[in-house]
C-alpha cells in the first residue's frame, strides 16, 4: 500500500473526473437530501455534507432496483449483460464499503453484478465523526476504511490536508499524474490511533452488543418477535436501503416479439416472500419474518462465510422504518435495554 499527501480533495476528484465518469454524494438541487449523483460543475465539496450518509448506500450501482436478465424472442433465450461505462464512486463511507465487499462475495457468481462491479473503482473517505444513528465501530465496519475495501482511501488530517491510501494497483494508477508527495509512515500509525478516539466518541451501543448475543443464543421470546411483527407494515424500506440486502424476484415484461425478464429488489418482510403456489407459507407470521431479517444481519452463522455480520452499522433502517422497528428500536427491545 502506498500513502500520499494531498492538499485539496477536490483536486483529486477533478483529476479522477478526467479519467472516468464520477459519481459522488451531493445535495439534489434545491434540497437538503444527499444522493449519489454524477459529478458536475455544480457539485459542492465532498465535505460540505459532513457527516451525513447518502439516503441510499452504493448498492444500486451494482445491484440495481431493476435490471434485465434475458430476452426471449419466441425461439431462443438470450442473456442481456449490462455494459457499463467505466466509473468511479467518489466519497464512499466505510460502512458502505464493507457492504460492497460483502455483496462482492455474495454475488461472486452473478454475471450482472460482476459486470457492473468490474467497471467501477471505489474512492472512500474516512468518517471523522459519528453520523446520526450510525454504529459502525460496534460491527467492525468503520469509522475508517478497512484495508483493501477501496481502491483509494482518503483521510482528512487535522491541518485539513489529506492522506491518500492507495490500496490497489488500480487505485495507485488513478492518482498517477498528480505527483503527490509520499507520506511519512508515522502518519499511518497516527491514523489508527485517531480511529480508536473517534470510535470512542460514538454513542453507547450496548443494546446492539446485547441484542447480537440474544439473537445468537436464540433467546428472544417468540412473543417479542410477534409484537414487533405487528409493527412491521411490510413497506420494504429497510431492505431497500440496507446496503447488504440482496433478495430479488423476477418477472416477465412484454417486448416486441417476445418478453424480457427483469429482476427487482424483493423484501423478506413481505408475506408472500416465501408463500408457495399451494398457498402454504413457511414464514406466515410477521414476527417470524422480522426475526429472520435480524438473524440474517446478526447471526454468527454467516460470519463463517463473510467474515463479518450482515449489518454494517449505517442505521438507515431506523430512519426509514415507519413502524419503529429499525435496528436501534429492535435491539433495544430484544436486549431489554428499552
Amino acid at each position, binding site marked *: 500500500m502506498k500513502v500520499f499527501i494531498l492538499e485539496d480533495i477536490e483536486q483529486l476528484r477533478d483529476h479522477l473526473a478526467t479519467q472516468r465518469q464520477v459519481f459522488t454524494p451531493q445535495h439534489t438541487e434545491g434540497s437538503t437530501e444527499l444522493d449519489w449523483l454524477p459529478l458536475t460543475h455544480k457539485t459542492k465539496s465532498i465535505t460540505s455534507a459532513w457527516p451525513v450518509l447518502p439516503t441510499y448506500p452504493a448498492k444500486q450501482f451494482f445491484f440495481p432496483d431493476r435490471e434485465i436478465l434475458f430476452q*426471449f424472442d419466441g425461439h*431462443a433465450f438470450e*442473456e442481456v449483460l449490462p455494459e457499463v461505462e467505466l466509473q468511479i464512486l467518489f466519497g464512499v463511507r466505510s460502512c458502505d464499503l464493507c457492504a460492497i465487499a460483502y455483496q462482492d462475495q455474495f454475488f461472486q457468481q452473478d*454475471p450482472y453484478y460482476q459486470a457492473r462491479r468490474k467497471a467501477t473503482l471505489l474512492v472512500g473517505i474516512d468518517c471523522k465523526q459519528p453520523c446520526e444513528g450510525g454504529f459502525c465501530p460496534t460491527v467492525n465496519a468503520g469509522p475508517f476504511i478497512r484495508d483493501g475495501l477501496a481502491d483509494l482511501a482518503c483521510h482528512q488530517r487535522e491541518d485539513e490536508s489529506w492522506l491518500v491510501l492507495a490500496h490497489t494497483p488500480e487505485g495507485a494508477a488513478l492518482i498517477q499524474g498528480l505527483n503527490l508527495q509520499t507520506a511519512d509512515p508515522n502518519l499511518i500509525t497516527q491514523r489508527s490511533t485517531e480511529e480508536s478516539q473517534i470510535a470512542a466518541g460514538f454513542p453507547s451501543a450496548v443494546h446492539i452488543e446485547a441484542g447480537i448475543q440474544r439473537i445468537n443464543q436464540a433467546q428472544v421470546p417468540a412473543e417479542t418477535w410477534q409484537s414487533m411483527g405487528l409493527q412491521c407494515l411490510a413497506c420494504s424500506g429497510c431492505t431497500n436501503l440496507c446496503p447488504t440486502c440482496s433478495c430479488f424476484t423476477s418477472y416477465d415484461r412484454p417486448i416486441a416479439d417476445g418478453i424480457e425478464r427483469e429482476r427487482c429488489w*424483493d423484501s423478506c418482510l413481505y408475506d408472500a416472500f*416465501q408463500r408457495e*403456489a399451494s398457498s402454504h407459507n413457511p414464514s406466515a407470521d410477521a414476527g417470524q419474518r422480522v*426475526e429472520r431479517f435480524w438473524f440474517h444481519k446478526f447471526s454468527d*452463522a454467516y460470519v463463517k462465510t463473510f467474515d463479518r455480520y450482515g449489518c454494517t452499522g449505517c442505521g438507515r433502517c431506523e430512519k426509514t422504518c415507519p413502524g419503529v422497528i429499525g435496528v436501534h428500536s429492535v435491539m433495544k427491545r430484544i436486549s431489554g435495554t428499552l
Partner: protein
Amino acid sequence: MKGLMTPQPIRIAEIYDDGEASRHFTFEAINGTTHSAKPGQFFTLVLPGHGEAAFTYLSLPDADGRFKALIRQAGSLTTELFKCDTGDLIGFRGPFGNGWPIDQLLGKRVLIIAGGIGLPPLAAIADHLIADKNTQVALIYGSHSPTDQVLKYERSAWHMYMPVLETFDHPSNNEQLAGTPLDHVTEIEIKPGGKPEAILTCGPEVMMDAVAHYFTQNNLASEDIWLALERRMHCGVGECGHCYLGSSYVCTDGPIYSWQQLTQLHRQTTA
C-alpha cells in the same frame, strides 16, 4: 458465471394425466444437448410471460436429454403449463440442489416414506437404489384418497422390485390400508434383518416431522433420516433469498437435509 439466470430451450415431448390435477410430463432437449443430474436434484421451467417455477426430476436425463416430471396444478405458472401441448418450446434451467446422499445409502436397508405429491422427488432415487443389488429398499406411500395417488405406471413397476405399501386417509374399500404411512410402518419388511438403516421421506412437513420423530425414538440416528424439503425457489443458485431455512438456502444446501441438519437449523431461531 455466464448464463446463470438464462434458460435453455427445451421441448415438451409427452404429456399424460396422472392423479388428481396432476400430469406426467416428458421433456426433451433441443439440438441434442443434454445434461446430467442426480436423484433429488431439481430444475426450473420457464414459461415466457408467466415466470418460472421449480420441479423435481422424476427421471433423470437420458442419453438423448429426455427427462420427466410429475407436475400438480397449483399456481399461475402450472395453470399455464397445463395449457401447453406436446411440441411446445419452453425454458429450462438446472440442475440445482444437492440430491439424495447416494453414497451413504448404497448397501443399506432403506425405507422410503412418501406422502401425497411427495412421491415424485423419491422416484429417481428409488429406481437408483433398486438397481443396486446390495441395497434393500421398500416404500410406503400415503395418500389422501385413491384418486389422489400419482405415478400409476411407476408404482406398478415398483411393486415388482420392492415391498410397497399404499395407505389412505380415506380408503374407498375395506381392502385398502386406512391411516398414515406411520400407522403401517411396522408391517413393511426390508430383508435381510428387517429394520431400516436409512429413511428417505418427502411429503407434507407435518408428516416428515412425525416420521423423523418416530425413527429417532426407535433408535435410528438423526443423520440417517433424510428429508426432501419444499420451498418457494426462484433462482436455484442461492442468490434470490426466497428459500431460506435458517442460515441455509434450500436451493443450494438442500433440498435434501438430514434430520440432524434440520434440527440444528431449527434451533437457530425462536419463532
